[in-house]
């Protein structure tokens, strides 16, 4: 993996008062993203606007495409054209992008997509928060594949995790999602952008060997096989069909086994390197509260209230949502009485927790159908009941 310092042209170093959406654009520019294609949709549009404003001075390309399908298709073209590329969207646009997310996964194309989640289904609550697309991010396109998804809980993390998203996309040649939400997207806070020489950036791993040795793929259940870019003379072929290591169609059940296993295992097999969690007072806890994104900011208050009542409660924040922290949940399930999962949806990530806990501890879902964050008292109450 070729890790370099960020190109200072894209880094607006210093302390800013900035919302999460803008911080995503700054994170992308700092990570070396020079191509943005997008379509306006509330509550994500500010990211596109920021990128459009900054693009000329950085020498980046911004294009407002005709729709979300075109936007993500353009990202795939741009990535094979040699650029780091991103788009941003919300619920309905995310749905429209699904088919080409599958193409990006299948062709192992590094792209970054931020979903500033809003309430659904359908047009739902365009201006109000939600975390209802968590499973869509993982399973939304047809067929079996894998992706990485990160969940920032502040504008600062929107910046930091966008840089990380680009680095992961390059390292594993995969689509990476920043699954933020309307509240974090529109929340203004202090965002410190470090100097360029303090930002680590993973460069595209480009094949440089002789033409006859060039293979765009290697199905070894690892990420990071070198790719190429159009114009370098390797005459690559990229297809969404099941393909061999040259990229040529090879449509057999046996080859699909090889390709799909690789796509899934290159991420699952590296889960311990990818997954980032934030834990607080989990050791010796009777109850652990699991949350992510904006909900973890609410959970802090709920946990503090429960501790005042002398309940031994810990908290676990998912910074990486996909791949899911299966191993850690299995461990915790053997140690605690209950796991409380708070999320702004009808119960999505709680299914993963239940699967991994496998009945060894109680799993409580504190769900909310979107439009607002939880009342912290509801989470506190769930913690109390779980201890009874």
């Amino acid at each position: 993996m070729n890790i370099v310092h960020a190109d200072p042209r894209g880094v607006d170093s210093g302390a800013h008062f900035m919302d999460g959406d803008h911080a995503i654009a700054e994170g992308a520019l700092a990570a070396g993203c020079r191509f943005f294609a997008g379509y306006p949709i509330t509550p994500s549009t500010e990211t596109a606007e920021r990128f459009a404003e900054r693009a000329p001075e950085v020498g980046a390309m911004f294009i407002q495409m005709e729709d979300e399908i075109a936007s993500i298709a353009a990202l795939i073209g741009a990535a094979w054209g040699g650029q780091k590329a991103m788009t941003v969207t919300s619920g309905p646009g995310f749905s429209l992008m699904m088919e080409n997310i599958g193409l990006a996964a299948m062709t192992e194309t590094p792209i970054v997509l931020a979903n500033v989640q809003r309430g659904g289904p359908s047009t739902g609550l365009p201006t109000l928060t939600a975390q209802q697309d968590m499973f869509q991010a993982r399973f939304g396109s047809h067929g079996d594949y894998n992706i990485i998804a990160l969940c920032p809980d502040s504008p600062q993390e929107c910046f930091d995790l966008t840089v990380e998203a680009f680095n992961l996309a390059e390292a594993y040649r995969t689509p990476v999602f920043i699954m933020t939400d309307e509240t974090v997207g529109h929340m203004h806070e202090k965002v410190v952008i470090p100097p360029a020489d303090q930002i680590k950036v993973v460069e595209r791993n480009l094949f440089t060997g002789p033409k006859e040795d060039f293979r765009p793929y290697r199905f070894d259940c690892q990420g990071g096989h070198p790719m190429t870019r159009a114009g370098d003379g390797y005459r690559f072929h990229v297809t969404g069909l099941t393909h061999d290591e040259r990229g040529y169609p090879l449509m057999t059940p046996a080859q699909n086994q090889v390709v799909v296993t690789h796509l899934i295992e290159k991420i699952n097999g590296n889960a311990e390197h990818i997954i980032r969690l934030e834990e607080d007072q989990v050791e010796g806890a009777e109850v652990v509260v699991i949350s992510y994104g904006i909900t973890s900011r609410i959970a802090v208050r709920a946990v503090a209230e429960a501790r005042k009542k002398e309940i031994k409660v810990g908290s676990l924040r998912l910074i990486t949502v996909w791949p899911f922290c299966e191993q850690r949940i299995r461990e915790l399930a053997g140690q605690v009485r209950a796991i409380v999962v708070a999320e702004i949806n009808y119960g999505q990530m709680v299914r993963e927790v239940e699967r991994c806990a496998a009945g060894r501890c109680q799993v409580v879902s504190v769900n909310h159908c979107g439009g607002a964050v939880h009342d912290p008292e509801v989470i506190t109450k769930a913690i109390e009941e779980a201890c009874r």
Partner: protein
Amino acid sequence: MNAQSAEFSSEDRIGAMLRTERMPHIWCPGCGIGSVVTCFVDAVLRSGIDQDKLVVVSGIGCSGRVAGYVNFDSIHATHGRAIPVATGLKLANPELTVVVISGDGDLMSIGGNHFVHAARRNMDLVVICINNFTYGMTGGQVTPTTPGSATASTTPYGNYEYPLTLPFLADACGASYIARWTSLHARNITQSVEEALTRRGFSFIEVITPCTTLYLRRNRLGDGVDALQYYQSNSEILHGIDTRETAIELQGKIAVGKFVDRPKPTYLDAVTRCNAKLIGDDYQLYGKTEPEKKAEEAKKAEHPVTSGHP
């Protein structure tokens, strides 16, 4: 690669531009797609463009398989999305020559929106639409170009929709170059593709081709030879004709020729002009990164350029 195909590719400069190891191809006897591919690679050769900088993007369908058979950088995209993928490629690296080759169903039905907007932006692409009036890969369904009253598997009693006239559509959307030929007009296709490859802006070439297995057979129009005879006796070369006059009726006259050739600034020209006004004349899309600049400076220091003689 078998001995025969190796011989084919070493002897023949056309063959060298094809992935002969992937032959035989999937197309039916009498199909016109192969003719278009031959004309296309011939035009590439004649144009003298750098083949390493050429990218072919296709969508889905019989024509969507073209990308897999040409020996250039190539992307076989999702159904209808060849044009936005091509847009991403071109904008990511403006040095590339990006060609979209796909079918009427792919480009004009599911991909219609992208066609409209790429033409509107005058995106620097060559788009070749192989129009056989049917969805071949899925078994002969009606497309937006199927002539009125022709039958298809989903219009078994005859097509009752109004078909699109592609040159008129491209014209209305702002394409800077528009031509149409049939697969009989091999030399003309080659010439038009060559022109399009060396022109800037959105170039659109429609090629009417026979689908022998589905469209011709279902409509009792004979085989491939019958189709070429129909093209021969019904095509009329009408360069510069008003594109509103280019509609095709079932087994009717086919206006062919170069209809539009109006150079104008491309999307990238417009971006550069706008940003140069803002940033100054040294504005450069993507420019050089700081490490690249440093490497250049280091190189200069290593080999200082001395002026004059001692």
